[in-house]
């Protein structure tokens, strides 16, 4: 009786199995590298209705974050400024720029296209509904804007800088000293702990720490953060209810 299957077919199952393994491995690799929050979220840079430049406002003009995001120390939400906040300056500056037409439509009653409807800014940082993040709890305790949002003052168009995953949140909740800084420096985008310690204020801090009987040396961010943590009794929680409720 002749062989029904030729000899080469002996290797077909192995080839198929190998092929499946490779495809699956490729798929897993793809998901691990490209479908995780780091890859998906970081760098998200939507186009905004008004090409607002943080480089100009926060960087070159040196405006404090809290001029526009005015309730960040009061509320859980760091509010996007209402149109009349923009209009405070822009009724005098670059009023006729075509880029500002959506603003004028919202707030300038003399503008022909005035509607009074709010400007629709595209949300860059989205957290799910079941996560309750509170800005005031962080900025009032020495966590800087930069820690979560990156160097906004260097972004012509805002993009997401950090992954904002739960693991990323917990990294800081477990070791807040990596991010704590004096309250005065919270909105300072260019802050660097080692540079700060060289300044007069930084020197005073070190002196004060010594005067308080704080034993460890303070030379870098971790050490500075550890001192502030003990000084302000900062104990971020890791249990679920801190963010989920």
């Amino acid at each position, binding site marked *: 009786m002749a062989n029904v299957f030729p000899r080469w077919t002996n290797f077909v199952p192995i080839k198929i199995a190998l092929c499946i393994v490779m495809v699956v491995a490729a798929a897993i690799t793809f998901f691990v590298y490209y479908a995780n929050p780091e890859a998906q979220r970081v760098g998200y840079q939507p186009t905004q209705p008004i090409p607002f430049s943080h480089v100009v406002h926060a960087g070159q003009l040196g405006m404090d974050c809290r001029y526009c995001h005015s309730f960040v120390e009061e509320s859980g939400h760091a509010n996007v400024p209402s149109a009349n*906040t923009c209009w405070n300056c822009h009724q005098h500056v670059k009023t006729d720029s075509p880029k500002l037409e959506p603003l004028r439509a919202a707030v300038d009653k003399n503008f022909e296209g005035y509607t009074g409807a709010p400007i629709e*800014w595209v949300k860059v940082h989205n957290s799910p509904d079941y996560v309750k993040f509170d800005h005031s709890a962080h900025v009032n305790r020495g966590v800087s804007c930069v820690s979560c949002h990156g160097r906004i003052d260097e972004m012509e168009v805002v993009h997401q800088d950090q992954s904002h995953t739960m693991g990323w949140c917990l990294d800081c909740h477990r070791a807040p000293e990596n991010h704590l800084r004096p*309250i005065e420096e919270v909105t300072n985008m260019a802050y660097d702990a080692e540079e700060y310690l060289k300044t007069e204020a930084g020197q005073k801090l070190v002196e*004060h720490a010594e005067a308080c009987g704080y034993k460890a040396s303070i030379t870098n961010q971790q050490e500075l953060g550890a001192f502030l943590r003990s000084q*302000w009794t900062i104990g971020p929680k890791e*249990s679920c209810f801190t963010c989920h409720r």
Partner: protein
Amino acid sequence: MSKHKWSHPKSNEASTTAWRSAGQLEDTKEFRNWMDREFPQGAAELEIDDDGTSRRNFLQLMGGATALAGFGLTSCRRPEKYVQPYADAPEWVIPGKPTHYASVIPGAFDVTPVVVVSHEARPTKLEPNKLHPSGSGVAATEQASILDLYDPSRSKAFLCKGEVISRETFNTEFKKAVEGKKVAVLTDDLNSPTRQRLSQASEAKFYSYNATKGFANRKAIEEAFGENIDLSYDFSKAKRILSLDADFLGTETQGSVQGYYDNRKVEGNDYRQKKTVEDLNRLYVVEGPYSLTGGMADHRLRIAPSQVIKVASLIAKELGASVKGCDYSSLTTFQKKWAKGCAKDLKENKGQSVVVAGLRQSKELQLLAFAINEVLGAYGSAVKTLQAERKGFGTLEDLIADVKAGKVDAVVSTTPSNPVYNAPTNLEFSKTLKENEVALISLGLYNNATANCADLHAPIAHPLEQWNDYRSGDGTYTISQPLILPLHGGVSEIEVISAIDNKGDFAAVESGNAAGLTQVRETFNQVAKSIDDKIWKQALRDGFVAGTAVEASASLNLASVKVKDAPALPVAKNGQLELVFVTDSSVLDGRGINNPWLQEAPDPVSKITWDNAAYISPKTAKDLGIYDKIVELAPKSNLVDNFGAKIGPEIEKAKITDTKDWESGKRTAPVIEVECNGHKLKFPVMIAFGQAEGVIAIPTGYGQGYDENYWRQWEEKDFWYIGTGKNDPDLVDVTTGLAPKENTTLVGVNRGFNVNPFRSVDSDYIASSVSLEIRPERYKVAQTQEHHAMYGRALAREISTYGGDFNKSLKKVKKQGADSHAPENISLYKQRGSTEWWKKDSNGQQTALLSDKVHQWAMTIDLNVCNGCNACLVACQAENNIPIVGKEQVARGREMHWVRMDRYFAKMEYHGEEPSADKGDVDNVEMIPQPVACSQCESAPCETVCPVNATVHSEEGLNTMAYNRCIGTRYCANNCPYKVRRFNFFDYNKRNPLIDKNLYKGPAGKKQVETGAHLQRNPNVSVRMRGVMEKCTYCVQRLEMAKIKQKQVLKSKVYASGKPSHEIKIKHEDLRVSANEVKVACQSACPSEAIKFGNLLNEKDDVNAAKASKRNYDLLNYLNTKPRTSYLARVKNPYKYMPDAKYIGNVTVDMH
């Protein structure tokens, strides 16, 4: 060596029994089965009868949906979301932070001063205005009114004879109906100074109608004191209170009850005062059906409501009030002794005692109460006569008389009472209006019977949408300010009255809320005697103007009270029965029918939801031969108690119904047909313990509309009908002759039974000459009574002041039930998180669980002042986005309330003595309510069984839920000894549970948005989805808010000191929320402040003082769960000269 075998001590034969329902009392097999399961059988299964969706069917649907979803995966990028900041930001609004405004919610008897919580101009929650002299708590009915604001089924359109018309057409029609005509305005009877001022300037005649108050009270006051007078009771000045069928702590408030509870608190409101037993007040109640006030009574006499006057006359005679007539010889010896004892106590406390009569009781009884109060010297102390704001206002009777006399051309009705539905039948409201060709113009929140019957209907503005003002129960001028513009173009009462005065021309009235503001401001200027804007703004901020109550100079003008002979005592055996129309605690006179929170809140006494029923006492039921039909008896001999002992003697085997039906939510009640006042109506009948014999009590307000799904409420299809016609296709309403289908919304349709055809002006509350027939059909009822029951243990505890040595009684608190003999909770293993553990930890060595040194949260619930009113339950629902599930789901035991209001009945304790008619009413029972929510156990049994760590303990002692992590195994609920966990069997928040079979359709079901009020939801609480377990977490969102606010201390210290931030030292104490600052939702809503909440680490928090009380005990202490919520035992304060004093307040003492 023999194994030590611990055996349960033998039960004392005479020991007390406490029970929750007839099923438990009789210990039916069904009840046993129900108790054995964590969730009742049907509750855990996707199974549906008849033509519904089966599990297989459901999987098919789900499969289809998943496949379809695959096609939608066009892009993996999440959708764009937008941030829309204000174009022109309003002052005071901080996105993410709620604003608070003082306003007022008009209720059925009184107004409730509230602080409205508003998220970005969206009112979401009502909190009590504690600044206000009568601001104590927000009752369930008022709390739920916020849901009406967003109800998508609210009246939105202007109607002309049922047809939708435009606002312009309405204006023209209104002008036609009103201009140059004799107009009558039918309003609510709450005291509104602006309404009074407008009425005096207006040519229209004013009448007031409030079905919950009835007619007798006003007639009595007018006879005794004169016109335009209100009586306000100040219970803080009363040490002895006698209630003659008045539910003044429950549905029939007659002045602020804060004073009553303050005098009731054994250790004072802060649990730190040194009071003696003599400082406690004492409450006597004479009533028929059990009310919440009756449940709070130290001495309760149950007697048919028509007979109350006999007891009252005897007491009046004993006290020396002049009474003529009334033969009380038919009272039993015990009843006479009771009345005499009560009179003695009242007399001894002259000047500090007061009598309150039921508002809808007979005029004679009310006059008698006035006369007794005169003798007791109550006027000027506990009873105040206040100037009302109804001068010149007629009653509904006057209106009908004027209509018949041709003095009225048009009636403009703004009353929330729905007169077409519930006006007494002898007035023939709608018929009289039609016959005399009087136009009816109705303004209402809903398209109810009155709206549909009216010639013209306009949606009225919700109380939170309009300007108004009221006098609160104590007479204080209180302002109602709008928080939102009328959502559906509603018209306010002030606007309408102004339009009538302007020849019916709305164009002449300021539009929107401007008219209301102008008028209220003008009244304010007169009341406050100032036109200063500063004072006005202060009044708006506070919500009231202090010291504005106007005391009337009127005094009692009553020579002697002539009392007609009371009707004969109803005896069920002889076929003599008495009907009582009690005010329903949820829907009141029918105004709450469309509110799902109120419908689903179980009746505080009967625990029935979504329906009403006829209630009769067990003995009367036996006399009528219906008891066995209600409670299907099982052979008791087979039954054993928790410890293996046989319970009770063997009794005759009776019919056992199919347990499966009973468990799967098809529990039914037998039906009776009652004939009275020329009408024959059917009602399901249920057992009510402690109700007077011969009395049938039926709550008002139900049965306003039926649709084609009505038959599903019945056991068999053949038996669905209303009125007289069987299978009547139009379901004609017997009162109005209209098809009532349209008179309610999806919430109120097919709900309960209408009693109004039985009522006339004279039999507004009590009707005698009743005949009754037992019907073969059965009606499905949804009772929460036996869900989540805790069986045979001293859970709610009480002690008595009787016997002189109160300290001895106090010692008994911790030794009741199993705690009397169970070994102490001693563990060799020093558990992490135990109460002792964190208290001893001061050296900072422990860093693991429960390590928080700033906050350790705890709660106490004082059963002594809890009357079981459901305020906490509804407040929790409003705060925590708890969905409603509908009648069918409640019947299956799937209700979602995080706070469950348990209610226990208990037999009197005779201490082994033979009960006899002399010693007490042997068939009377005590009622003890007990709210139970998650106790936040330190050794929580639920946490250890969760396979995914979705429920974990927080550092602050909370048993928290991570909803997004829960996979719905329900292990935790299975392991919870308190049965406080609730499972989302369906997507109750998203899919509408009120549409028939809708939940079972899965993704194909209709969305909740159409009838649900998603706008009301609290943005700080996750909305839970299907398949997720949920429960109370001590309002963790409020705790976090308070903590975050406290964290600003660093910044404020930097600003205040001017020092660099690193020099500021922040200690644990600085981060601690200040004492009694954070209030959880149930706590702030509680009218009696029975709930205390706070931080165990802060000595100043009241909760610590409460926990130190000797009355404090843990629920199921012997399980060693170490709950953070503890209870304080109830104290009964019987009078030693009463015949039954010895036997009161001991029902749980001997339990073991």
